[in-house]
């Protein structure tokens, strides 16, 4: 097993489209790194470059100590799980798992041993003679995992492996993948656009946007201190509320636009002109009495989820575009038209520079 390293990796397609603008990162041995981002952000491209399915335009990818830029996919000692599983439809489950090993001239009894072992781990024992077409989605997913495991690779690459499954199965497979990776201790790169998957699976996250790694860190680091507006809006569900405002003249607070209210915290550094974007997560806004309120929200719509409710509304007198979402206790009755008085703990207020989207720190 081995770590993985990206050194100034760039990708430009022959038609001139720049997919990756330079990634520098080291993944340590046994680490589970999730690459998350919206579609078209280059996350799959990055993964495919590690797999060797895309060429690296500039920079270097290392697996262990070796530069792998020029190696064929088969020689990189990686295994990949595809979104549509890419099982060979005409081969049995056993052959699907054994194919790569046969091509590698692994001895027959060794193949049988490894496949049996993987089938045991993945509960596929009774299905080894079936064809992929006779399996359910979850079983196919397991076969795809099995095909990766039997290779005993240095790294697993997952390309949105759960997005073809229904919601319940997805949660179950998510746990299984995590458990399996822990047990095997194999370095893993996992691409997804689903931030729940990203948060739950990752030791570390790479949040990508438009070919740039906006932030790299543990899920909680990213949740607690998003480095950019994009990361702040992308990680966390429902998404963070963004309110524009200015730094108060005496420098001790933040004045929201309109007469939206004043927050008793100020950014550690204030940008030129004093314009700022204030970010507050819906779960950090707390209903309080009118006297303690930092802001007031006119309720427009309530989504009751049971355990809690999502309240969507507008900042009272906040001017246009000051939509706010609040997560309140499910037991609390809120109706459209109500005015909610809200407060927020100072350490849960995020400040961003509206010009470059960077966190003010």
């Amino acid at each position, binding site marked *: 097993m081995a770590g993985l390293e990206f050194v100034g990796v760039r990708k430009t397609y022959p038609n001139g489209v720049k997919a990756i603008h330079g990634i520098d990162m080291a993944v340590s041995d046994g680490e589970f790194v999730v690459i998350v981002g919206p579609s078209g952000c280059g996350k799959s491209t990055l993964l495919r470059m590690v*797999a*060797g*399915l895309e060429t690296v335009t500039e920079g270097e990818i290392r697996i262990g100590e070796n530069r792998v830029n020029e190696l*064929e*996919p*088969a020689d990189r000692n*990686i*295994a*990949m799980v*595809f*979104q*549509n599983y*890419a*099982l*060979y*439809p*005409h081969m049995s489950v056993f052959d699907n798992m054994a*194919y*790569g090993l046969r*091509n*590698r001239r692994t001895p027959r009894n060794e193949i049988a041993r490894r496949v049996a072992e993987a089938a045991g781990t993945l509960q596929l024992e009774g299905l080894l003679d079936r*064809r*992929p*077409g*006779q399996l359910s989605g979850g079983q196919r997913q397991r076969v795809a995992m099995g*095909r990766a495991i039997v290779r005993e690779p240095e790294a697993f690459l997952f390309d949105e492996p759960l997005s073809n499954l229904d919601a319940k199965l997805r949660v179950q497979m998510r746990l299984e993948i995590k458990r399996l990776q822990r047990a095997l201790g194999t370095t893993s790169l996992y691409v997804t656009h689903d931030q729940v998957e990203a948060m739950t699976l990752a030791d570390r996250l790479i949040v990508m946007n438009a070919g740039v790694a906006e932030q790299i860190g543990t899920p909680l680091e990213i949740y607690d201190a998003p480095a950019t507006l994009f990361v702040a809006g992308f990680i966390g569900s429902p998404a963070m509320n963004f309110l524009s405002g200015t730094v108060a003249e005496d420098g001790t607070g933040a004045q929201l636009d309109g007469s939206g209210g004043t927050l008793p915290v100020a950014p550690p550094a204030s940008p030129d002109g004093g314009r700022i974007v204030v970010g507050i997560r819906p779960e950090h806004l707390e209903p309080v009495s009118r006297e303690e309120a930092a802001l007031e929200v006119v309720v427009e719509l309530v989504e009751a989820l049971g355990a809690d409710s999502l309240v969507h509304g507008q900042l009272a007198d906040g001017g246009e575009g000051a939509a706010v979402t609040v997560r309140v206790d499910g037991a609390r009755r809120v109706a459209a038209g109500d005015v909610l008085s809200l407060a927020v703990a100072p350490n849960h207020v995020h400040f961003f520079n509206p010009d470059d989207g960077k966190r003010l720190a």
Partner: protein
Amino acid sequence: MVENRPWLTVFSHVVLCLGVLVTALPIWIAFVASTHPADSMLSGRTPLLPGGNMLENYATVLGSGVKAAGSIPVGTMLWNSFVMALMIAVGKIAISIIAAYAIVYFRFPLRKTCFWVIFITLMLPVEVRILPTFGVVASLDMLNSYWGLSVPLIASATATFLFRQFFLTVPEELAEAARIDGAGPLKFFRDILLPLSRTNIAALFVILFIFGWNQYLWPLLVTTDEGFYTIVMGIQRMLQAEDAEPAWHEIMATSMLAMLPPVLVVVFMQRLFVKGLIEQEK
């Protein structure tokens, strides 16, 4: 939707039965004729029930051939046709599947051009290019040979196009998974693509075998040696026999025999077809 309109049902069945009659009657008459002695077809009244000379007639055509047409045993002609049709079908499939593989899976200069050049040859069937093709075959000394009968007919734009369309529907990830599994281009072709194309190959084989079997003009041109006559042109020669009444009983027996192999191919391959369709998984 189930409609209950008795007259419509009766009407459509009548139409279908008429269709079957129109198609089947000539074949029946050919069969009946092949079982009568020589004179009953010439008497002016076409018999509608089988006669008693069946074994005799078939033995004659298979063994010694039709005298008036040069006495080439039908067995030889059947064999020639079979070899030619088989070579054409197998050759066409082999060449077009490889061409399609190259066009779909490899990036090389002028790839698009190659495809279009192949596609444009659809406009040039044998009949159009028959003189130059004959010239080439003659100068390659391939007249009166199985190669001469089959090679000029082997290149196939249609089959290439069909395989190309099929390969385009094979998910790209399959090729990528195979690459990661350490399968080179040839291994991928042999282990993955070929087994997946099985039903397409079977379907094309049926069509192309019959295409090859029914070739008439080309064998007529390139064979002068009776040993290489094919069955379809053979039947025509029997009719043209000079100074003799056409031996209808023997001609019809030959026709029946000529129809048999394509029918067998269809019947036999049909099973593979259906099997493939049931097993198809996507």
